């Protein structure tokens, strides 16, 4: 045997085992070296959060190269959007970030409103903020819970988070009618008004939710093993974060104080009193903490929105078939995973000429291969988990 621990029959480059496949996939930077092991993580792997694939070169347990391969969930959403009317396009946005569909709905609706100049009634804006922030909480709950799984817990934080996600989904299903893929926020307003019992239930949820966040913090934040696993792991310096146009909690964990809700206030976010949590280490622990803190801030916004909401229309007056004048519009909002952008071009027909998305998960994921290098295999999984990707959004 050579001076390596890797048996001959599974050594790095063996055409029978499909290394030619790597070449055909265009995997760059795979070094031919007997001491290195090429490990294919995914597309079917417990911690790739869907069908993400990562080809890593390992020296022992240390990652010396990582190549992400995406597209296993590609459904050509953008092309489908061009072949559908504006209202039909809303349904496609649900299927992108399926953990927080309402925020993607929102970005799309906002782009159409900028395109057409529709003015949204105030009650609809409040309902948008309420459902949008509930979606953010729901998405962050999943992010925090599955991050706990990636760090190696036996699912306890995840199940705690799922418990509260259930109440959020129950709440959301009152105005939207469904638990997932609600297509709730549509151009000109929202799909339907919230029933009267929604507001007392939301009030009750807001009362108990902060104590539930304390529970997650008790099992994760103050946990010595968890801190050991996440502090100082996967540091993204602010300049790297900016260079990769990373947005959302990842950017704010790197010390960049940027939130679209405040940098370019849309809807009625300028009316609320809340803070943008920022942390400065840019490691996995900070990314986790930002999400926890954002859940607390969302609770604040929700409370204020609940107090201030008034009766009124929920939909603007608009034609049955929307035919915007020729032109283009770009709208961006702060989704739970980062900045969701929608770029629409109208050619005057009922269908958009171009239906382009800026998916935050996809953009954030681009810096993974740089950040993961030099860490241990176990840390690469933790870093991927801390990015909180949704493959439906990455691959579209």
């Amino acid at each position, binding site marked *: 045997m050579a001076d390596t*621990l*890797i*048996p001959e*029959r*599974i050594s790095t480059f063996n055409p029978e085992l499909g290394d030619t496949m790597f070449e055909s996939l265009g995997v760059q930077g795979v070094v031919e070296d007997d001491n290195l*092991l090429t*490990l*294919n993580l995914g597309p079917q*792997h*417990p*911690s790739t959060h869907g069908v993400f694939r990562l080809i890593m070169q390992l020296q022992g*347990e240390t990652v010396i190269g990582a190549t992400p391969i995406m597209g296993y969930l590609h459904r050509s959403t953008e092309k489908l959007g061009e072949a559908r009317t504006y209202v039909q396009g809303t349904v496609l946005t649900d299927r992108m970030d399926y953990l927080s569909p309402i925020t993607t709905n929102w970005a799309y609706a906002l782009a159409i409103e900028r395109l057409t100049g529709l003015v949204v009634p105030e009650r609809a804006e409040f309902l948008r903020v309420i459902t949008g922030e509930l979606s953010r909480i729901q998405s962050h709950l999943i992010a925090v819970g599955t991050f*706990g*799984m*990636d*760090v*190696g*817990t*036996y*699912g*306890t934080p995840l*199940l*705690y988070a799922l*418990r509260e996600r259930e109440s959020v989904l129950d709440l959301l299903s009152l105005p939207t009618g469904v638990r997932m893929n609600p297509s709730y926020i549509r151009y000109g307003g929202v799909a339907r008004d919230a029933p009267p019992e929604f507001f007392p239930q939301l009030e009750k949820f807001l009362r108990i939710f902060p104590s539930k966040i304390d529970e997650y913090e008790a*099992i*994760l934040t103050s*946990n010595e*093993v*968890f801190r*050991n*696993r996440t502090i100082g792991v996967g540091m993204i310096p602010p300049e790297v974060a900016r260079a990769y146009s990373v947005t959302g909690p990842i950017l704010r964990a790197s010390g960049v104080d940027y939130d679209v809700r405040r940098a370019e206030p849309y809807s009625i976010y300028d009316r609320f009193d809340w803070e943008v949590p920022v942390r400065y280490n840019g490691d996995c622990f900070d990314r986790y903490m930002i999400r926890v803190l954002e859940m607390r801030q969302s609770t604040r916004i929700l409370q204020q929105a609940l107090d201030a909401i008034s009766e009124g229309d929920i939909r603007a007056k608009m034609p049955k078939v929307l035919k915007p004048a020729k032109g283009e519009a770009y709208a961006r909002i702060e989704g739970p995973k980062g900045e969701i952008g929608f770029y629409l071009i109208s050619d005057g027909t009922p269908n958009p000429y171009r239906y382009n998305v800026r998916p935050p998960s996809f953009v954030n994921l681009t810096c993974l291969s740089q950040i993961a290098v030099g860490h*241990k*295999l*176990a*840390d690469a*999984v933790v870093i991927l988990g801390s990015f909180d990707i949704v493959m439906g959004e990455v691959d579209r």
Partner: protein
Amino acid sequence: MNIGDLYSQHDFWLSIGQPLENWLVGLGVPNWLVALIYVAVGGAAILGAITVFVIIAIWAERRFIARLQDRLGPNRVGKFGLLQSVADAVKLLGKEIIRPRQADPFLHFLAPALILGASLMVWAVIPWGPGLHVTDLNVAVLYLLAFGAIPALGVTIAGWGSTNKYSLFGGMRAVVQYVSYEVPGAVVLIVPVLLARSMSLQDIVQAQSGPLWNWFVFQPVFFVGPIPIPIPIIGLIAFVYYLIAGLAETNRTPFDHVEADSELTGGFTTEYSGMQFALFFLAEYANSIAVGLLASTLFLGGYHTGLGDAVDNAIWILLPGVLITKAAIIFLIFVWVRGTLPRFRYDQLMQFAWKRMLPVSIALVSLSALFASLSSLLGPIIRLAPGVR
């Protein structure tokens, strides 16, 4: 009062085993056949006990962890879901055993048998009650160390023989992890040996008979007149270290690197299916329970209730239940840890073993040696255990 005298009245061997043997010999059964019957019955009893314990342990773990996680857990098969493990075993029996084409057939086949065999061997020396054991080796602690090391080999060859990169990682991690935790685990085993001055597990248990403060976990105990003041700097730390090493050697969270489902999909078990996988599972749980039983035996007074010799003597037939209760509590603590803690990273695991546990455990052994010699000099003030001979 001589402990040996006290137990000579109520001893499983003297009260049941020997009269039965005499009766069989009196019937004209040859001696060799009697010995054979005893070996067969003992082996069958232990195997049956392991199976029953594992089934109950899997059920208890799933139910307990489900309660921790705010869900119900298995509750459909049998009363309270007690037969869930049986149903799972039947399902696994019916599954095809798949061996990857590239795997090494012999090693792939050998690994589960080796691991299960080694984990069953440990059970042979556990003292269940006074005079109730399969064998009372006078070097039982060495025997434990020897058979405790074999699963590392099994996991390694499972990882190597599967010809899967994830399995190989699991196997490589197994070598390092088991070997690292074997060292502090073995060193703290010397503490009860020094305190009892014997390597036989029956002797170690007998040395902890009598009142609660005689348990090794409370040592050293200082006496102000008749009042015991336990200052458990040796016993408690050694006990906790033994449990930590036990967690690492049975692959449980936070030391489950060898399987590490979020990184290695299944580690060394990735390429195993059907009954072969069930054997790994059985071995893992048999090991976990054995760690609980051994920790109780070595530090928590074994089958003694801690209420004094009179009570032990009165309920002598129930003493195995006392040991099993203690082991069950330790097992549930393991489950609790699993439901709470994330996994250590691989290098943190190594640092913890070599930089924290090993120096402290060596210091513990030195201290316990010091106290053992002091107690013979200053008997009335520092007394380690009544069983010190």
